[in-house]
């Protein structure tokens, strides 16, 4: 039994099927990159796993976490899992955070809910978490509201909330699309370090192949709601099976080559 097993997951809105019979599994500590264009169903799969699909969506098939069927759980039962067993970092930190609540309180929330810590202990832990995601001056930053922070800082807060209870599975959905390259590099490094420290499994969703390939060992390629390829990263780059994966790999290689040629010292 793998840690996470997704079997024939189909998600539809009315008659519109957005994810079509997708299956994959993930062992404890494994890292899976999910890549695909917008509308390919990447985020829907993540939302299904974490139990946050919109009410208008129906999911069939099976999602098992350590043997427990998640799709059968009620909202209330799912809340016991969410934040504790599995947690998610969302794409757009400004919309994912509560604008009316100081970020320290938001980070402490899962601790208050799951670990029943006191409010004071929660804030103390929030300060530690802020430090561990690389935020400067954590004692002050916990008192800030989301709008007072930069994009990179907000994304780090999202990350701090997600890792607060040391989840066994961390899902990050395009965590860096809203960020600058320099900030992106730091945030990716932070995610990398945290996952390593906590030994969690990781599902890393992105449309950017170079980014995904720095974060995961296996890559699942989605296209129009179907899983067209699922391979080890070396295999995917050396021998892509599906035409779409091949296009992605070729383009990433060409861009890389062009850029390296450009940055090679002209004085040589």
């Amino acid at each position, binding site marked *: 039994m793998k840690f996470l097993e997704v079997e024939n997951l189909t998600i539809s809105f009315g008659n519109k099927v957005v994810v079509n019979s997708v299956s994959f599994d993930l062992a404890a500590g494994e890292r899976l990159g999910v890549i695909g264009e917008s509308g390919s169903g990447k985020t829907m799969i993540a939302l299904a796993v974490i139990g946050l699909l919109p009410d208008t969506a129906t999911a069939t098939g099976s999602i098992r976490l350590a043997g427990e069927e998640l799709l059968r759980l009620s909202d209330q039962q799912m809340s016991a899992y969410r934040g504790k067993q599995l947690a998610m970092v969302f794409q757009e930190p400004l919309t994912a955070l509560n604008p009316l609540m100081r970020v320290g309180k938001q980070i402490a929330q899962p601790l208050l809910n799951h670990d029943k810590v006191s409010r004071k202990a929660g804030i103390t832990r929030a300060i530690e978490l802020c430090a561990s995601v690389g935020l400067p001056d954590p004692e002050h930053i916990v008192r800030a509201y989301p709008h007072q922070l930069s994009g990179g800082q907000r994304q780090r807060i999202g990350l701090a909330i997600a890792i607060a209870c040391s989840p066994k599975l961390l899902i990050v959905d395009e965590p860096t699309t809203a960020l600058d390259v320099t900030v*992106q590099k730091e945030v990716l490094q932070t995610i990398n370090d945290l996952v390593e420290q906590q030994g969690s499994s990781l599902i890393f969703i992105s449309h950017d192949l170079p980014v995904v390939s720095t974060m995961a060992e296996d890559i699942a390629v989605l296209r129009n709601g179907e899983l067209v390829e699922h391979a080890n990263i070396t295999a995917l780059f050396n021998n892509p099976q599906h035409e779409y994966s091949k296009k992605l790999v070729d383009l990433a290689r060409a*861009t890389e080559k*062009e850029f390296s040629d450009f940055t090679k010292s002209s004085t040589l």
Partner: protein
Amino acid sequence: MSDPLFQAKALCRDFKLNRTAISGARPVRHAVADLNLEIETGDRLGVVGESGSGKTTLAKLLLNLDKPTSGSLTFNGQLFSKINMAIFRREVQIIFQDPRSSLNPQMTVAQIILEPLVGLNFEQNHQQRIDQVLQQVELAPAIKSRYPHELSGGQRQRVAIARALAAQPSVLIADEPVSALDVLVREEILQLLSGLIKTLNLTLVLISHDLSVITRLCNTVVVMKQGRIVEAGNTQDVFANPQHQFTKDLISAVPRLPTLN
């Protein structure tokens, strides 16, 4: 010697921020600070920098969509304050980042492209020009009666390009034209833009945080940080031999593919 196409001298644009204290002056953010820049006809200039470095503010100033707090800006040697806007708009056009918000959702593609032709008194037959420009951006004529929401992201950006090129400008300012697009679509749009710039002999000002886009399309580059230009020069020279630490950081932060055997 003739005047440069655009010339910015000691250009500043300050924004007053909200008060953080009851008394005293409002804090000021220098979005563009003491910036000097010359753009010659035929230049393909890339502007790179982090978000908040003043790239978009600079573009707005160059487009005369925003006024500088101080400093001067000239177009063909003429001060912006004395320019005839009807002529200026014929010459300088823009493509925005997200075509979903830059195209009017209530207009058909034909109406969208017609708007600048009417507004700028374009001389040729308007319907003919719409067909022509749609062909230039490689869209089928059947698309004319469609609305933006019926189009894919790539098609929408093509319509935005068609609208910008409709009145035959000589300068194109593009603010992150491909960053909202999927990778494969982005590649198509980059190829299209690169071809159009060559065939139409356009002067380009391209704003992007993506260095690989700049290396594809631009022959000169300026690197901005906190409203100032920290490095400028030939694209190849700057990227091969970055002088400023910030430029070096930018280049090293570009995600690279893992080395595989």
